[in-house]
């Protein structure tokens, strides 16, 4: 045990002086990631708001031929812009993206209307332009409402109850709450947290394994009267400490930056107070020893720092896999899924951010299984460092 602590202390001391550790553990976690997340969230929030509130601009050709229709459009926050385009020019303007939507009123509109016949209007839009789709929908809806309004008046004038037009009454009941719509963002958040945590220990692990071998200090180290696995446990522990440091900084920095963004816009009334921050750290931390051990195992098979860097980068992808499954399959936490490292952390982080109660059983299961797997991986790493090929 004493040897493990000696190794741990030395690795901490050495790495705190190393600029690369500083960059990977501290800078990325504190500054870059929260910034990225804040931008992402901000963008999503803004987009959601703009779609509902921003007035739609509609270019109208010969609006004077249908004054009632134009007035109706104006009432539904559709800004009318009078333009003078013929058919070909209107097509060009829309396909060339100078105008999003063009509404043209033909000459015979008024006469058809007066005769009680379908009055033509031309609506130019580009269905391949996804950004315009919502605007086109709104214009179309107003046109349909105007049309059925006139139809009702005509029926009433002929002494017919206009309700005959409504054979089916559709009531839309949208169960999507703002919170569940933000699942994607929450998934991204979890991934960012886990990723920065693992990255915090990346350099320490590589330096303590592949780096030590490359520099030629490993062979000397193996001649001290300490069992090899203890040396490895010390190094894994040191990497875990840096991961926890990185995790803590990341979660704190994210809490601060998310507060500026205003999560209530996403319907997440989560109070990112000290307790929540502690809980977030507490549920992610058990993944650290597993990550550090896996990186150590991978580094054991490589010959140089650079080679190790390449392969260990793959370890960083492992936590994404469960998250991808979770979002594509719409997984919900179950007893079995809470035994999957990274996935269980995802469930807990998501739950905490949505201010949902986290089951003690599930949390306990996640912590226990993650730590146990970390222990097994550390043991395996210790065994691997008995290989003679290690010296190269």
């Amino acid at each position, binding site marked *: 045990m004493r*040897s493990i602590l*000696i*190794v741990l202390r*030395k690795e901490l*001391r050495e790495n705190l002086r*190393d600029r690369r550790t500083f960059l990977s553990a501290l800078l990325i976690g504190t500054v870059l990631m929260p910034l990225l997340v804040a931008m992402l969230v901000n963008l999503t929030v803004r987009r959601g708001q703009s779609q509902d509130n921003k007035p739609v601009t509609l270019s109208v050709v010969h609006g004077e031929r249908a004054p009632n229709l134009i007035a109706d459009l104006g009432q539904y926050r559709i800004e009318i812009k009078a333009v003078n385009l013929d058919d070909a020019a209107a097509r060009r303007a829309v396909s060339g993206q100078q105008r999003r939507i063009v509404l043209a009123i033909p000459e015979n509109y008024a006469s058809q209307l007066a005769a009680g016949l379908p009055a033509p209007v031309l609506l130019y839009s580009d269905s391949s332009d996804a950004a315009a789709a919502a605007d086109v929908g709104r214009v179309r809806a107003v046109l349909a409402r105007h049309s059925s309004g006139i139809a009702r008046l005509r029926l009433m004038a002929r002494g017919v109850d206009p309700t005959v037009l409504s054979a089916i009454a559709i009531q839309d009941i949208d169960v999507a709450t703002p919170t569940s719509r933000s699942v994607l963002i929450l998934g991204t958040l979890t991934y960012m947290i886990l990723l920065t945590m693992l990255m915090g220990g990346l350099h320490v692990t590589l330096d303590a394994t592949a780096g030590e071998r490359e520099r*030629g*200090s490993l062979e000397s180290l193996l001649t001290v*009267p*300490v069992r090899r696995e203890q040396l490895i446990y010390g190094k894994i522990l040191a990497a875990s400490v840096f991961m926890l440091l990185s995790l803590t900084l990341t979660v704190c920095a994210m809490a601060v930056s998310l507060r500026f963004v205003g999560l209530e816009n996403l319907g997440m009334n989560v109070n990112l107070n000290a307790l929540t921050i502690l809980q977030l750290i507490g549920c992610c931390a058990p993944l650290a020893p597993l990550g550090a051990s896996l990186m150590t195992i991978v580094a054991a098979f490589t010959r140089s720092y650079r080679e190790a860097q390449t392969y260990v980068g793959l370890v960083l992808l492992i936590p994404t896999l469960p998250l991808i499954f979770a979002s594509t399959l719409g997984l919900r936490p179950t007893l079995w899924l809470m035994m999957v490292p990274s996935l269980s952390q995802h469930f807990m982080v998501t739950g905490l951010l949505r201010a949902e109660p986290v089951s003690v059983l599930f949390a306990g299961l996640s912590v226990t299984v993650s730590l146990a797997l970390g222990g097994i991986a550390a043991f395996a790493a210790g065994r691997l460092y008995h290989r003679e090929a290690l010296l190269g």
Partner: protein
Amino acid sequence: MIEARQLKKRFGAVTAVQDVSLTALDGRITGLLGPNGAGKSTTLRMLYTVLRPDGGEAFIDGISVTERSLEARRRMGVLPHGAGVYPHLTARENITYFGELHGLSREDCEVRATELIGLLDMADFADRQAKGYSQGERLKTALARALVHAPQNILLDEPTNGLDVRAVRTLRALLLKLKATGRCILFSSHVMQEVGVLCDEVVVIADGRVVAAGTPEELRERAGTADLEEAFVRFLEPAASHS
């Protein structure tokens, strides 16, 4: 005292060491001499327990390196080939780290480190981080690290490689000083002159076998030449025609 009995080591199809037996006594400097690829490093690595022999046995002060390797390691100070140091630690910290791993208390480590820094003339760089060290400074640090626990047996693999004359002389003086205190010193080299100047005993190996052993005088006599280098070459010839 270091004893090797019929050590054997294979790496896949290549047999690096076929049959090496040697004895290095306390109070003497023993040189392991041989051309590149003769099996010197592999022999030393088996002795200092980072490789496990495929055959034969070795003892450090009578302790088996395979059965009681931790105890054997306690009695050895090792300078592996091309030993590196920790770049973000100072020389002093490099030394105390190994001292602690050898079970010394932190105070003892500090005392020993200061002692070795004086002995190896390291004072002007001992408290600077090791990343800017010259090769000589790195070697001194690695050597001091190997000696921190005052081991009875000292094993050095090609210690003079890449050193300038001054550093070689410092090293030589240190080895003689250690010999005077009754330590057992075993070092490998492919430079004949160096071995001739320093060693009380020489073990010549080629192709993984011992081809000659004895004092430098005995070797000169047996080869029938006054020139040690010539003697070395003559010992290697039968081995070379063998293979």
